């Protein structure tokens, strides 16, 4: 079993030597050091991690949304605003006792003002293993244009 967790949250199972003060002290120390050993996790999923990139021709958004299916994500775009809406609930499976819950549910609505005009009809979205990738091709007038330098004699 997961030794770290046989602390005061009191597992119903395997509850054996609970009586001795020495063992309870040891349990307590195990618990404290167990917590220290863990690397800190920053801002759990209350706001999913989102990043933007600009490739010149298109903007791309990458958002980590583990545990969501396509139907639970709503995306809307205009020429310069992107709105992403996603929510997840984290529920304990039926018939199981809970030992630890770090995964959080979230309800997330975020609008982004885009740094360039995009073509809303050409936006593509894909969800793969909990990662949402949006490709937002820029509008023709916002595409980079190559200016050739002409040499004058």
């Amino acid at each position, binding site marked *: *079993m*997961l*030794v*770290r*967790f046989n602390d005061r949250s009191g*597992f119903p*199972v*395997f509850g054996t030597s609970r009586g001795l003060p020495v063992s309870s002290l040891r349990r307590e120390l195990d618990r404290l050091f167990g917590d220290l*050993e*863990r*690397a*800190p*996790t920053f801002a*759990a*999923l209350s706001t999913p991690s989102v*990043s933007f*990139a600009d490739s010149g021709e298109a903007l*791309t958004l*990458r958002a*980590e*949304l*583990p*545990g*969501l*299916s396509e139907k639970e994500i709503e995306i809307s775009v205009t020429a310069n605003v992107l709105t992403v809406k996603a929510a997840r609930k*984290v529920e*304990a*499976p039926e*018939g*199981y*006792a*809970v*030992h*630890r*819950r*770090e*995964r*959080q549910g979230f309800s997330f609505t975020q609008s982004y003002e885009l740094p360039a005009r995009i073509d809303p009809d050409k936006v593509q979205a894909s969800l*793969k*293993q*909990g*990662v949402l990738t949006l490709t937002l091709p820029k509008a023709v007038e916002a595409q980079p244009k190559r200016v050739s330098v002409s040499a004058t004699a």
Partner: protein
Amino acid sequence: MHKQNQEKTRPAREVTPNVDIFENDTELLVVADVPGLDPNDIGVHVDLPEFRIEAKVQGSPDKPVVYTRTFRIDERIDAERVRAEYNNGVLRVHLAKSAAFRPRRIEVQSS
């Protein structure tokens, strides 16, 4: 623990995934948020007294991400009967309890 003195030269971002841990009569269930992986890149290692989840995100445009999380387990887990599934970026590992540690219902007989 033993990894802390190791020099960190890998340019990867190391992430400790959030997990939920559940238990019923027959198994422990560990659920971890590890988005963006190829199932082939997920390592679930049972090496008593350790149980370790290790996975690397390949081909991400940013710095590669490495997820690691280690737990201590003991002989009450049957190391041969650990199975894992990965769906929508969520990893679920089922750790079956050894037969001797599963609760058993004893029939009371009247004489």
